[in-house]
Structure formats: C-alpha cells, structure tokens
C-alpha cells in the first residue's frame, strides 16, 4: 500500500476551519433562538418555602418561567442514575429543577426563557425564592459523622460501600500479610477536588419543527443524550436527533448526561414551538456541573527487606457530592488502578462513597486514577525511604515482568470484567524514563529534588463502537462513527486509518463524529477509548468495503480478487497497473441504477451493460452501494502504561516550587499519529501540574465555593507548565486488530505523585496531600 498513513504525524484536518473562526460550537449556532437562563440555589442545603415570580413578569422580552411545579410528570422525574452498581445501595439523583430541597449551591431552581440572555438574566434577578436554610454537610469526614444528612433517607451519608480483597498466593488476607511482614507503615493521604474545566462550558440548543426535535449539545455522548431526551419527552427515538458540533474541550465533565438543561431546553422548545438555546457561563460551570478527585485515604502496607509489597490495605473516603448520577465509577477505578504496574502479595481496598452538600462528582480526565496512583506511588517512596533504597529499585522489585502477560490482577475492573493486563514492558519503561530524566546522574542538592511516578491505565472500555464507511461515485470516502470529538483530532486519525485500510488519498476521506443522523449506535468519548473503539470499528468497516470493492473490481477486470490491490484510490492487478479501475467506478458498478442523473450514473443504468441479464441486478445477500458498517466490541479493556519523572527546585525562603525538568515515557501500543499523541500527553501533564500544585475547590463550612471563578481557581498558564520531554514504547495490544491502546487521559494520571515525590526529595518532608501550594510547603517546614 502506498497510502500508508497509519503511524505518521499527519497534520490535522480540522485545523484550517478552527484557525479561521469557522468552527461551529453550540453557542455559534441558533442566532435567532430564544435564550434560557436559570435561577440557582445560593444555599448549600435548604428547603424551598416559596417561589415568587411576579416581579419578573414585566421584564421586556420574557417568554416563560418554569419551576418544578410546571414540569409534566415524566420530565419532572429524578434524572437517571446512569451506572447502577450493587454496592451503590443509596444512589440519589437530582430533579431537573429543584423539588422542595436544594442540596448544593448552584442547583437549578427556576428556568427562564426570554428573547435574549441579558433579558433572561434580568428576569432571573427579579425572581424571589424563599429558602429555609438547613445544616450543610461539607467534607467527607464531616459527612461520615452522620450528624447532619444530605438526603434524609440516607443514613450516615454513605451512598455506597465496597470492599474488594485479593488474598496472597499463599492464601493470606491483606491484614494477615501485613501483620506477618518484616516492615509495616501506616499513613494518611489527602486529595483535593478539581474539575475538568473545559474552556467552553456546557451548552444546549434545541429546535422543534412540529414533529421532530433536533438538539445540539456540547456533549461527549450524543447517542445517549438522544435516548435520554426521547425517554424524558416520550418521543419516538426516530423523531429526535442529537448532534455534538465542535466541542470546546470535555475532559470528562461532558460525558455526564443528561444534564438538567439537556432535558429542560428541548422540553421547552417543544412546548413553545420555538428554538431555545442555553449557554453555560463560567460561574455556572463551577457550581452546577461536576467536580472530581476529592478523597481521603488511609493506608497500611507490609513489605520485605527488598521493598516487595507483601500486603496493602487501603481505606478510602470518597466525596461524591450531593448526587450520584454517574454511580461509583470513580472510586472503583481508584481501587483497581491503584495497583499500577505492580504485583502485590495481598490487597484489600475498601471505600465509602459519601454525600456532601457540594457539586456532584463525576469523572474528570484520569477518573479516579490520579488518586490511586498518588496512593501507590507515595507508598513506594515511603518504602524506599524506610529501607534507605533507591526509589526506582523498590518499584522494579514489585514490577510485573514482560513474560507474565496477560497478567490477572484478580479484581473486577470498571467495565465489570476481569482486571487482566494485556501487554506492557515495565522494566524497559523504567530504564527509558531514568535515562530521559537523568536519574542516575542526578546530583542531590538542598532544595532540589527528583521524583518518579508509574501508572497503568485501562483504556478502550466497551461495550462497543461502530463505524460506517461509504465510497461514493465521485471517489470520496465518507466515514462516520457515533462517538464525539472534543479536540482529539478524530477527523484526522480516523481518516488516517481509513486511508490506510482502503488505499485512498487522505484528502478524499471525510469523517463525521457525534451526529446521530449519521450513526445512531455509540457509547461516547471517555476513558481513553475513542481511538481504540472507533478506530478499530472503522478499520473493520473499511475491510468489508475493501473486500466488496475488490470483488466488484475483479468482475470488471476479469481478475482474481486475491491478485488485486488498491493504490491511490485505484484498484489494480498487482504488478500490472494497466489493468485497473478507480474506486469511483467501482462505486458506480456497485449501485445498479435506472436513472442517469449524471455521466457517472449513466454507466450504471439498465441498458449500459454493467450487469449480467442472467442475474438479479443486486444479488441475493448483497446490497447496493459500496459501503460497510462494522462494530468493535472488546472482550475487555486494553492496558496502557507510563512513567513520568521530574526535577523540582524549591525556594529556600518562599517555598515556591518550580518544575525544572519533566520527562514522560508512554506506551499506548501502536501510535496512529505521534504528533497527536504527544499533544494529548502535553495537555494531560499540564492538567496534572494544575492538580499537583494549584487547583482546588475551596468550599467554606457553609458549602459556598469561594473560588468559583478563573480569578481564584488557579489553572496553569504557559508560565506554570514545564517543557515535557517524551519518549514512546510500543507494546501492541493483542486484543484489537490495530494493536492500539488509549492515550487521552494518560498525561494527567501520575503528575501529582511525581511532583510530590520530587518535592519530598528536595525537602526531606513527607508530602501527603495534593495539591501542595508554596504556603502549605512553607508551613510543613515548620
């Protein structure tokens, strides 16, 4: 194949549009739409006594005001609990508009529709809601005291409790293995909240044409939003279409769905027969979307003289905020992915997932892994320090070896399937990262430290994705897949896969994602799964199309299909370029026609002699057209891995922390586009730096988020992010046809662990919390 683009740093095909202001994000659409705005709770916990809208009724341009009482029964039901789990015994979700009680600052109480957003906000400001404040629950340790309840019917504020145990091969429990170990350590770790914080917030734009609803949403899953809307509005699925247009970043928060606004805006659009749009503002995003990360971990570990972990016991308090619409995926991932590249003697992990009067917690890039990796890597560092050993030596003593794959961690992963690692080479990766950072040459000096962090990431979770590929009579290749894009370059990487599989120039390939009009079956873009899932599905669909193209071309060329190949969009006999037919003509031949609407079509009409009079024009079991559809559904996840290392300097006086060098070795199997993979890693590391040093959700004791703006929530600028050196190791996944693993979340996962490791090395002080600010480090110095 001459058109082998898989693996090449192909420039992104979406860029010219995005660079010239031609992107189409939700708020760029619907210039004539009415605007929605929301009155949101100013209290963390309160009973709603009365809502008085009378003062708002005189606002110019007001169209409608809705409270919970106005919602029909079906629309007013609690929002779905998307991922039920047997351990989530007390799952609770919000109503689209608050009913009787509000449980966090920012919960929507009243929806206003007006002719523009300014006027809608004017009306919101005039609506008076009378609240009876209730005692708020803030912080997991306050929550588990159970003195006050977030939900009256959830005792002790515990939504879920799960214990997972893996005994040692000798049959010892973790507790027994720790008690019997030569050395033990016990410690506590604190992990703050952060959030995805895409620069485009959420947004919904809906239009109703009398029978059909079309909704544009800034979402990571258009197919599931579509089904949720159809269910809530009691519409046939075929009368609802949902499109994720250009999406200005997701990082997890937009896989949560349906948001109240995703139900309410379409509902009102249908009721009013008008186009309605709602665009989230930044404050709303802070107080009414989702956060992640917050955990307290209690760790006990037993180990031998070499630093091998004989037993590990981790007890986690996980803060899931006021509601659990996304279930307990985050603490499950923390519990399982905590194991990283290591084989432990015995392991016990227990978590309580608890309610607080704060914004709900749903996955943010990394999805529980940064917390798990922080725990395991802090453990490794503490063991090394206790034994006086090099930190990489202790890690190496615990690694799963390359000849031990597939390696069964004997746990249940987030997809309900066994936690079995498919491939990897951790010793080689350690060698590479040590070389890249200069581990062995590092000169210890006061206020200068080096740190390391290792992780394994389950990527490409099922259940499935699909791809559709159609070659039209102009020779163009149209690829569609149901999952969405938020900046990952899918229009490029999926085109690379299709161009490579079909032997066509990439310029002829176009890719559509996240549009239910084109592809209705999909799960979504999260969990580093898009390339693995849709990439393989598209490859499989291309192979079907290729097979059909070769069969038709073989007929036309009177050749054996096995002797044909496709080069630059032309099917030809291997070694005989003169015996050839372009794919455009094959597409014409694949679709017998009656009407000659253009010159190409004329070649396929009934008197053109294109088909044999002795056979039906479309053979039994065949279909007209040159297209194919296929799905990829893996037996289980594929496990990517990585190791990061950093050198930091701390100011001896101010305790300012500066990352002077940062190195990443990353293994996502075969790379489709190394330029894009590196971009994903850079971005992940930057978010990790934010989580390690700056970002926190500062709730006061009243449940007010006091830093709900970019002025006060410190996201890194260019001046805060170090230059990242990257190197790749490729251990192909044996589980999928392309041998690939996911890369999207990787960069963020170990950063807090790495930075803590390096600061600890620089300062000689235990760093047991993330993030760590200069003033906290200053205080720790005592």
């Amino acid at each position, binding site marked *: 194949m001459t058109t082998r683009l898989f693996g090449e740093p192909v420039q992104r095909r979406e860029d010219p549009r995005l*660079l010239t202001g031609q*992107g189409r994000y939700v708020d760029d659409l619907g210039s004539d739409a009415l605007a929605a705005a929301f009155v949101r709770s100013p209290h963390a916990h309160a009973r709603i006594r009365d809502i008085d809208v009378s003062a708002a009724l005189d606002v110019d341009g007001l169209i409608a005001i809705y409270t919970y009482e106005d919602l029909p029964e079906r629309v007013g039901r609690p929002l779905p609990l998307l991922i039920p789990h047997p351990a989530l015994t007390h799952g609770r979700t919000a109503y689209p508009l608050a009913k009787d009680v509000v449980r966090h600052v920012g919960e929507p109480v009243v929806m206003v529709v007006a002719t523009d957003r300014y006027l809608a906000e004017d009306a919101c400001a005039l609506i008076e809601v009378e609240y009876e404040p209730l005692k708020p629950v803030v912080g997991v340790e306050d929550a588990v005291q159970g003195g006050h309840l977030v939900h009256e019917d959830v005792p002790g504020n515990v939504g879920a409790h799960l214990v997972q145990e893996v005994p040692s091969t000798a049959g010892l429990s973790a507790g027994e293995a720790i008690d019997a170990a030569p050395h033990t350590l016990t410690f506590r770790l604190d992990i703050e909240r952060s959030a995805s914080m895409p620069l485009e917030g959420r947004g919904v734009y809906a239009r109703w044409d009398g029978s059909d609803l079309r909704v544009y949403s800034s979402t990571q899953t258009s197919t599931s939003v579509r089904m949720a809307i159809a269910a809530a509005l009691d519409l046939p699925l075929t009368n609802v279409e949902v499109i994720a247009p250009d999406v200005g970043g997701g990082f997890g928060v937009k896989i949560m769905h349906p948001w109240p606004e995703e139900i309410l805006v379409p509902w009102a659009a249908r009721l009013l027969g008008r186009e309605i749009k709602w665009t989230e503002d930044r404050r709303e995003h802070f107080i009414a979307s989702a956060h992640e990360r917050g955990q307290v971990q209690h760790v006990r570990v037993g180990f031998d003289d070499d630093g091998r972990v004989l037993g590990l016991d981790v007890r986690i308090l996980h803060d899931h905020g006021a509601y659990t619409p996304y279930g307990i995926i985050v603490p499950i991932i923390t519990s399982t992915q905590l194991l990283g590249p290591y084989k432990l003697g015995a392991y016990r992990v227990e978590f309580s997932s608890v309610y607080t009067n704060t914004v709900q917690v749903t996955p943010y890039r990394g999805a529980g892994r940064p917390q798990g990796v922080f725990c395991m890597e802090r453990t490794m560092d503490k063991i090394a320090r206790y034994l006086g050993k090099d930190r990489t030596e202790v890690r190496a003593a615990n690694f799963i070896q390359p000849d031990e794959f597939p390696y069964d961690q004997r746990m249940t992963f987030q997809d309900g399937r066994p936690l079995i690692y498919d491939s990897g080479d951790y010793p080689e990766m350690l060698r590479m990262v040590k070389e890249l950072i200069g581990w062995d040459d590092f000169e210890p000096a006061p206020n200068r430290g080096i740190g390391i962090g290792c992780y394994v990431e389950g990527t490409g979770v099922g259940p499935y994705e699909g791809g559709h590929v159609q070659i039209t009579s102009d020779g163009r290749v149209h690829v569609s897949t149901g999952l969405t894009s938020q*900046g990952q370059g899918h229009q490029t990487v999926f085109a690379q896969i299709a161009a490579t599989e079909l032997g066509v120039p990439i310029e002829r390939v176009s890719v559509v994602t996240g549009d239910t009009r084109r592809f209705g079956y999909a799960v979504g873009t999260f969990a580093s799964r898009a390339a693995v899932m849709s990439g393989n599905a598209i490859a499989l669909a291309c192979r079907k199309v290729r097979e059909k193209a070769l069969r038709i071309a073989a007929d036309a060329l009177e050749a054996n299909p096995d002797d044909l190949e496709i080069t630059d969009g032309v099917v030809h006999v291997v070694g005989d370029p003169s015996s050839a037919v372009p794919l455009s003509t094959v597409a014409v031949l694949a679709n017998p026609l009656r009407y000659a609407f253009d010159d190409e079509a004329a070649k396929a009409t009934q008197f053109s002699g294109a088909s044999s009079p002795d056979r039906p024009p479309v053979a039994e079991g065949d279909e007209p057209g040159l297209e194919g559809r296929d799905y990829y559904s893996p037996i289980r996840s594929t496990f990517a891995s990585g190791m990061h290392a950093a050198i930091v300097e701390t100011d001896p006086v101010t305790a300012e922390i500066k990352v002077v060098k940062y190195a990443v070795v990353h293994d996502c199997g075969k790379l489709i586009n190394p330029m894009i993979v590196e971009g994903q890693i850079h*971005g992940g590391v930057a978010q990790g730096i934010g989580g390690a040093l700056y970002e926190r959700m500062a709730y006061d004791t009243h449940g007010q988020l006091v830093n709900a703006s970019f002025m006060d929530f410190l996201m890194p600028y260019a001046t805060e992010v170090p230059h990242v050196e990257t190197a790749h190791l490729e251990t192909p996944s044996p589980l999928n046809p392309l041998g690939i693993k996911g890369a999207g979340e990787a960069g963020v996962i170990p950063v807090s662990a790495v930075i803590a490791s390096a600061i600890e090395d620089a300062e000689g002080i235990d760093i047991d919390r993330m993030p760590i600010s200069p003033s906290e480090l200053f205080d720790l110095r005592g």
Partner: protein
Amino acid sequence: MNSEHEITLNVNGTTRRARVPGRRLLSDCLRQDLGLTGTHVGCEHGVCGCCTVLLDGRPVRSCLMLAVTADGHEITTVEGLAGPDGMSPVQRAFAECHALQCGFCTPGFLCTVTALLEENPAPTDEEVLEGISGNLCRCTGYQNIVKAVHRAAELKAEES
C-alpha cells in the same frame, strides 16, 4: 439600562453598523449582532483570554469592553487574520506545530500572538511565555503553542 445606541465599527476592514443596548459587551456584539462567532467567550471576567481581539492593532478582552466604547475603532477578529493568499503565518504555524486541540481558546491566542509578533518579530523563549501568559488553554499544555510562536516568527521573517 436598555436604551440603544448606534455604533460604527471597522471590523476586519469592513465598516459595520449596529444598534446595541449600552450594556452590550463587545464580545456579544461581535458574535450576536455581527455574526462573527469566531471570537469565543470562556469566562466573561477577563481571565481566560478566549475573547481576545485586536482593537486598533492591540489585543483587548472583548468581554471586558462595552460595544459602545469600541464605537469608531478598528477591530480585527480571528476571521480577519487570513489574507487574500490564505492563512497568516501565525495561523499556519499553529497548524504545523499542532498548537491547538479543541480550538476554543485558539482565536484568542491567534490575536494575541499576531500582536506580539508585530511588536517583537523575534521574541526569546521568555518573551513568548510572557506574551501568551494571559491566555488559558486547557488542551495543549502550551508547549506546542510556544513552538508555534517561534515558527510563526520564522515564517514571517521568511516572507517579509
């Protein structure tokens, strides 16, 4: 509060008139009244820099400015950066260096960097970091943006 004002802006070389309420933000005027949706709004409090446009050649936050105060001024938005021969050196450098992912912050960066290179055609690393330190990007980690600024400086020098 809602009394309207006639304003005249020169946007991307074209004279545009709009009738706006006094409180209309310049960002909203560009996006809603003039249909130039390439300018994005990320925070509405002047921190993220997504809404950066050039006002008389200098970068400003269009979310921190009322449309009426831009009356009579020249404005360049992302839609006006490309020339008759195609994308500007800054735009091409961003594509070449993979300096964008979701693209939402990109128009603000492009305007900022265009002004930066006008003022300082060959910035040092430090000057580049300083120059883009008022714009947030959540996708790229900035590394490729820094690279793109240097590349744009090269392209500009080659083509001048």
